[in-house]
C-alpha cells in the first residue's frame, strides 16, 4: 500500500482543490492511503461533499499553515504545527511513504531538510521540473524533459552535478518509463571544455564514473528541442532558465491575444489553428504531469504547482505513488553508491583543471 501524505493547506487554491484532488486519488489510485494534513474541522467539512473512499482517506490535524507569500525560514520557525512540517514529520516517522504539497516552495524544501535525511552519498538535494519539448520520450511518450536543479541548491559542485544526473536519470526511467534517459549538462557550448569549472569537471566524471546515457553538454536552445531527457545544472542556472522559459511562454500567449484583437486576418489565422493549439495545450499541460520532485532525500516529495487544481493534485499523488512503488529513492541510493565506489580519490578531477 502506498501512503501519500498531502499538505492539504498549501497552495493558492487550498484547501478546497487539494482535498478534491486527494478525494479523486482515493478512488483512482489503487491500493493507496491518502493522509490529509491540515485543519481537521475544515477538511472534515469539505470531504463529505466529494466523491471519495472514506476508508482510504485519513485526516491528521495541524493547527497552522504557511502562507504562500511568507518567508520560509521565519514561517517554519514561528509555526511548529504548520501542516507542511507535520506532513514531513509523519513521513519521517514512517507513517507515510511520500509527500505532496502545492504550498510555499521554500517552506516545503526547508521542512524536508529539517525533518528528513539525505540519501548516503548525496550532499545536496535537487528540485526537478519538467519542460515541454518537441520530442517525446519513453514508453509513456512523455513530451517533457526533466531539468534539475531548479533552485534547491544554488551553487553545486561537480560531484553534486553528477549526483543530480543520477537522480534525474532514475526519476525519468521510473516515471516516464524511459529505459535509458539521455542525460546532458547545461552549458554555454557543447564542447567538453566549455563552461564553469564545476561543469567541466562534472563532464569528465559523468563519462568516467557512471553508466548513465550521458550525451555531453547541451545549450539553452536545446532545452525546448528536447535533445536531452534529463538536463543537469545548478539551482541558480536552473531557476533562471525555468523562469525565462515561463516568461517566453506567457509572452507568446500575450502576443496571440494581441493578434486576435488587432486584425481580422490574424484572427482568422488563429481560428484556423485553434484545434492544433488546443492539442498543443493539452500535450504541454503541466497539470498532467503532477509536479516537481525534490530528489536526494530518503523520502520523496512532489512539489505541485502553487496554482494546482484538483486534477493536478490527483496527478501529483499518482506520481508520488508510482515513484514510491518503483522504489525511486532506493534506485537513487544504489546509483550514488555505485558511483561513489568507482570514484577513487585520485580519479576525481580538480575543478578548474580542464
Amino acid at each position, binding site marked *: *500500500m502506498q*501512503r501519500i501524505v498531502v499538505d492539504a493547506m498549501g497552495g493558492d487554491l487550498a484547501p478546497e482543490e487539494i482535498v478534491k484532488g486527494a478525494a479523486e486519488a482515493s*478512488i483512482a489510485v489503487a491500493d493507496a*492511503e491518502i493522509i490529509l494534513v491540515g*485543519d*481537521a*474541522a475544515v477538511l*472534515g*467539512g469539505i*470531504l*463529505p*461533499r*466529494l*466523491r*471519495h*473512499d*472514506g*476508508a*482510504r*482517506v*485519513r*485526516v*491528521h*490535524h495541524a*493547527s497552522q499553515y504557511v502562507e504562500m507569500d511568507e518567508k520560509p525560514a521565519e514561517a517554519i520557525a514561528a509555526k511548529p504545527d504548520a501542516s507542511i512540517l507535520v506532513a514531513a514529520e509523519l513521513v519521517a516517522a514512517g507513517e507515510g511513504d511520500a509527500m505532496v504539497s502545492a504550498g510555499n516552495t521554500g517552506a516545503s524544501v526547508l521542512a524536508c531538510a529539517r525533518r528528513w535525511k539525505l540519501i548516503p552519498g548525496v550532499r545536496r538535494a535537487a528540485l526537478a521540473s519538467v519542460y515541454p519539448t518537441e520530442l517525446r520520450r519513453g514508453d509513456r511518450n512523455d513530451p517533457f524533459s526533466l531539468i534539475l536543479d531548479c533552485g534547491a541548491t544554488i551553487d553545486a559542485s561537480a560531484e553534486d552535478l553528477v549526483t543530480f544526473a543520477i537522480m534525474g536519470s532514475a526519476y525519468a526511467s521510473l516515471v516516464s518509463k524511459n529505459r535509458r534517459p539521455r542525460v546532458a549538462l547545461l552549458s554555454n557550448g557543447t564542447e567538453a571544455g566549455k563552461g564553469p569549472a564545476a561543469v567541466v569537471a562534472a563532464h569528465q566524471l559523468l563519462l568516467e564514473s557512471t553508466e548513465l546515457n550521458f550525451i555531453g553538454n547541451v545549450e539553452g536552445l536545446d532545452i525546448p528541442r528536447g535533445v536531452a531527457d534529463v538536463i543537469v545544472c545548478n539551482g541558480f542556472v536552473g531557476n533562471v532558465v525555468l523562469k525565462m522559459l515561463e516568461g517566453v511562454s506567457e509572452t507568446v500567449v500575450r502576443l496571440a491575444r494581441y493578434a486576435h484583437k488587432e486584425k481580422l486576418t490574424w484572427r482568422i489565422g488563429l481560428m484556423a489553428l485553434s484545434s492544433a493549439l488546443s492539442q498543443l495545450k493539452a500535450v504541454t499541460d503541466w497539470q498532467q504531469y503532477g509536479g516537481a520532485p525534490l530528489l536526494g532525500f530518503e523520502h520523496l516529495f512532489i512539489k505541485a504547482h502553487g496554482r494546482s487544481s484538483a486534477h493536478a493534485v490527483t496527478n501529483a499523488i499518482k506520481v508520488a505513488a508510482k515513484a514510491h512503488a518503483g522504489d525511486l529513492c532506493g534506485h537513487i541510493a544504489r546509483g550514488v553508491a555505485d558511483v561513489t565506489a568507482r570514484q577513487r580519490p585520485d580519479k576525481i578531477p580538480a575543478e578548474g583543471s580542464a
Partner: protein
Amino acid sequence: MTTPTAPRHVFRWDLDKTYLRTEFDSMRDLIKSAIETAADKQAYPGATALLRALRAGEGHRVCIISGSPSQMRTVLAAKLKLDGVEADEFVLKNNLKNILRGRFRALRAQIPYKLPALLESRAGSPPAPAETLFGDDAEADAIIYCLYADLLAGNVPLTDLARILEAARAYPDEVQRTMLAAERAPRGDVVKRVIIHLDRRSPTAGFRRFGPRLVPVFNYFQAALVLYADGLLDARQVLFIAFEMLDSRQYQLPILANSLQDLIRRSRLAQPVATRLAEELRDVARDAPATVARPDLPPFDDVARVFTDRVRELRGIAPLPQPGTAPVLDYVALVDEEHVNRRERKRGRA
C-alpha cells in the same frame, strides 16, 4: 399447531451492489451477471460475516428483497448457501412477466417494485418491533427505505403515497397493489436504522437530508461499528467481520482504522462508543487470546494503538454536527431528482 413467535428484529437486505459485487451499468455487465455461476459471484468483504452475525441473534429475521430477476433465484440461492447465509424470505423481481406484458418501464423501475414488496413482507409475517434496512447508492434505495419507514410511522399519509407513485411512473396496478399493502402493513416507528453501502462512492453529504437514522457506509466494517453502537452486534462479532475483510486482502488494518475515523468525523459514531468497543475487545484478547491472535497481525495492543491513534490525530476537533431529525421529506421532489440523476448517470456512461 404452534403459532410462529413474533420476531424481535427484521433485517431487510438488497442483494446487488449491497451484498453482491454486481455490475449492471452496461448490457455486457448484465449478460455477465446473468451467466455467472454461484461460485463466480462475489460478496463484498465483511458482508457475509455481518449477515451471519445478524441472523444468529435471537428473534432475528433476514429478508432479502432484490431487483434481480426471479429467473436467477437458483443461482442466487446457491450463492447464499455457499456463503452459509440463511434468509427467512427471498423476494426477486419477475422481469420475464414484465417483458411478456410489454411493461418495459417496470424493468428498471425501483420504487414501484421494491416499496410494495417491503410492505407486503411486513404485512405477511408477524410484525417485528424493529427493522434495519440495507441498500446501496446505485439506485433509489435511500428514498424507498425512508418512504417505507415514514409510511409505517404514519408520517406520510396514504393520500400522498398515490402522488409519489405517480411521480415514480408506476403502472396503475402497481399503485393499487402498493396502496393495498400500505393499508395492511402493521404501523409503528419500527425502522431504526438504514445502512446505505456507497458502492458508487457518492458524496456522503447528499444523505444528510434523510436524517440521523440513515448512515452511508464505505464498507461493512463501518456498518458493523454502527450496528455495534445500536446494540445489535457484540465486540467479537465486529472483530470477525474485520477478520473477513482482512482475509479478502482488499483491506488492511490502517484502512479499517481510517474507516473508524471517517465515521467519527461524520458524527456517525461517538468517540465513547469507539472507546467502549476497544475495552471490550481488550477483554476478549485477555480472556480468549486465541480468538484475537492471528499470524498476519501484530499483537493486540499494537492493533488497538493504530485505531486509537486515528481518533487521537483528530485532536478533539469538533466533527460535523449530527444530521438533525429529518423533517417530513418531500418524496415527490426526491423521486423527480432521482429520475434526473439516473438520466445523467446514463449520459455519463454513454
